[in-house]
């Protein structure tokens, strides 16, 4: 066993070229989106507030590691929460880590989980404009995501249509803790719009649907919640597969963000095994579940698995498919992955370039 040493220094001439598929921008204050919200919604927010299906609507479902789930070193000197300063994002992350392109994933306020559907849709519209005005126009390396309020499919499809031809946006974004499993037909108009506009659907961990975060109920500890994101992603994938979404929308591409990786091969194999025995229950599936996943689903890499043996990581990538892995850091959150150190396995330069850049370049058609 080797000993981790401090002095394996950061390469002095690190020629990193990275596409970071998960960057979280933050607002200094909620009033930043007021210019993009109708007056009635500003008043609504002032008088009634945000209504999510949990207590303390401005809190998170679990207290996070550190305030704001943030890296302790990501607080801007000028004040404001981590992720709110473009200057710090540039110096600490984009410049320092060779980020050529970065995908914005705004999370706060959870518009897709707002109980007031019209308010949720209005929030997505405002936050989508905010991404462009506040970030992409000021930093050409960044790209926006079309945030949608998926419980209102009419509003979601309208927002997708409004943004689809805007090159500032690269994908549609929703959070996986939806009111019903994501493959249910109520959500199909969203998939139809995604396919028609050739926009991938990004599913980033999160959402507040009122259901307990695990099948066994609400857990006690943040550590359990942090594991439950994998359960959530599994229910997303099994629902998309078994409801026949990929059969109905053969051009649909989905990227699962921040759900972990280690479970994917065993989960796929388990679904295949069940399909070989119970296929007639879902005759609309023409192929094995793992084939749909292999063809339609990509995964972001953070939080990277850190198995005890490097060969196990290589084996995992072999089984998921090297071309399905999109590098991500989660900046400025506490479980950030550094592109220099995230993959604790010997990789060839070609493999490293594929993971850090090439796969996302092909997936998003940028760079």
């Amino acid at each position, binding site marked *: 066993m080797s000993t981790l040493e*401090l*002095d394996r*220094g950061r390469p002095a001439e690190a020629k990193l070229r990275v596409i970071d598929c998960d960057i979280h921008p933050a607002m200094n204050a909620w009033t930043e989106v007021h210019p993009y919200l109708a007056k009635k919604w500003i008043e609504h927010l002032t008088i009634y507030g945000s209504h999510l299906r949990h207590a303390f609507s401005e809190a998170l479902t679990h207290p996070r590691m550190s305030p704001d789930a943030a890296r*302790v070193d990501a607080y801007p000197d000028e004040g404001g929460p981590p992720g709110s300063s473009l200057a710090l994002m540039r110096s600490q992350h984009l410049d320092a880590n060779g980020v050529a392109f970065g995908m914005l994933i705004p999370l706060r306020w959870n518009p897709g989980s707002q109980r007031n559907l019209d308010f949720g849709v209005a929030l997505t519209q405002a936050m989508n404009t905010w991404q462009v005005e506040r970030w992409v126009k000021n930093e050409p390396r960044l790209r926006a995501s079309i945030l949608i309020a998926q419980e209102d499919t009419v509003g979601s499809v309208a927002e997708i249509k409004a943004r689809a031809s805007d090159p500032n946006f690269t994908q549609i974004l929703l959070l996986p803790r939806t009111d019903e499993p994501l493959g249910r037909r109520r959500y199909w108009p969203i998939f139809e719009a995604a396919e028609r506009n050739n926009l991938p659907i990004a599913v980033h961990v999160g959402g507040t649907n009122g259901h307990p975060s695990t099948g066994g109920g609400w857990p006690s500890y943040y550590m359990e919640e942090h594991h439950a994101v994998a359960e959530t992603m599994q229910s997303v994938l099994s629902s998309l597969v078994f409801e026949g979404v990929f059969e109905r929308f053969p051009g649909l591409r989905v990227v699962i963000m921040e759900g972990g990786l280690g479970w994917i091969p065993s989960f796929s194999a388990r679904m295949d095994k069940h399909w070989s025995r119970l296929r007639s229950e879902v005759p609309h599936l023409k192929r094995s579940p793992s084939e749909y996943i292999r063809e339609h689903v990509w995964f972001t890499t953070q939080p990277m698995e850190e198995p005890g043996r490097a060969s196990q990581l290589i084996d995992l990538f072999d089984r998921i498919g090297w071309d399905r892995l999109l590098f991500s850091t989660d900046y400025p959150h*506490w479980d950030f992955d550094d592109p220099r150190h995230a993959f604790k396995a010997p990789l060839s330069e070609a493999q490293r370039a594929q993971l850090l850049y090439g796969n996302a370049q092909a997936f998003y058609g940028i760079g």
Partner: protein
Amino acid sequence: MARHVVATVDDIAPGQRKLVHVQGRDIGIFNVGGEFFAIANRCPHEGASLCKGRVVGLVESSEPGSYQLSRPGEMVRCPWHGWEFDLRTGKSWCDPLRTKVRAFDLKVEEGAALVEETLLRAETFPVSIERQYVVIEV
């Protein structure tokens, strides 16, 4: 190995830390209730600056439902992933045998003694006999 004066004891208040650069290394000097410790600044996991981490005590439990907090201020948590390192030894709490940052020998010495020392590498650090200094060996 050489001895380096890196701070006066007054530079670093109890609970605070100072990042110094010696022989090409970034080293964190921590004041724990008046005791000084020096550890390398880079987390061995993904390279974060430990000087930017929170200094905490050691939380332990003898059984579920029982918590003990001891050794206040003697652990630093990495600012990214929260790995805890013992400021006295540099060892991580979860994996002390394999995961550690280098701890450097450190002494607090009187300026009066230091001005006599000819090998001292303190060219950029004026030493006066009235004060106390943090000296590390690198």
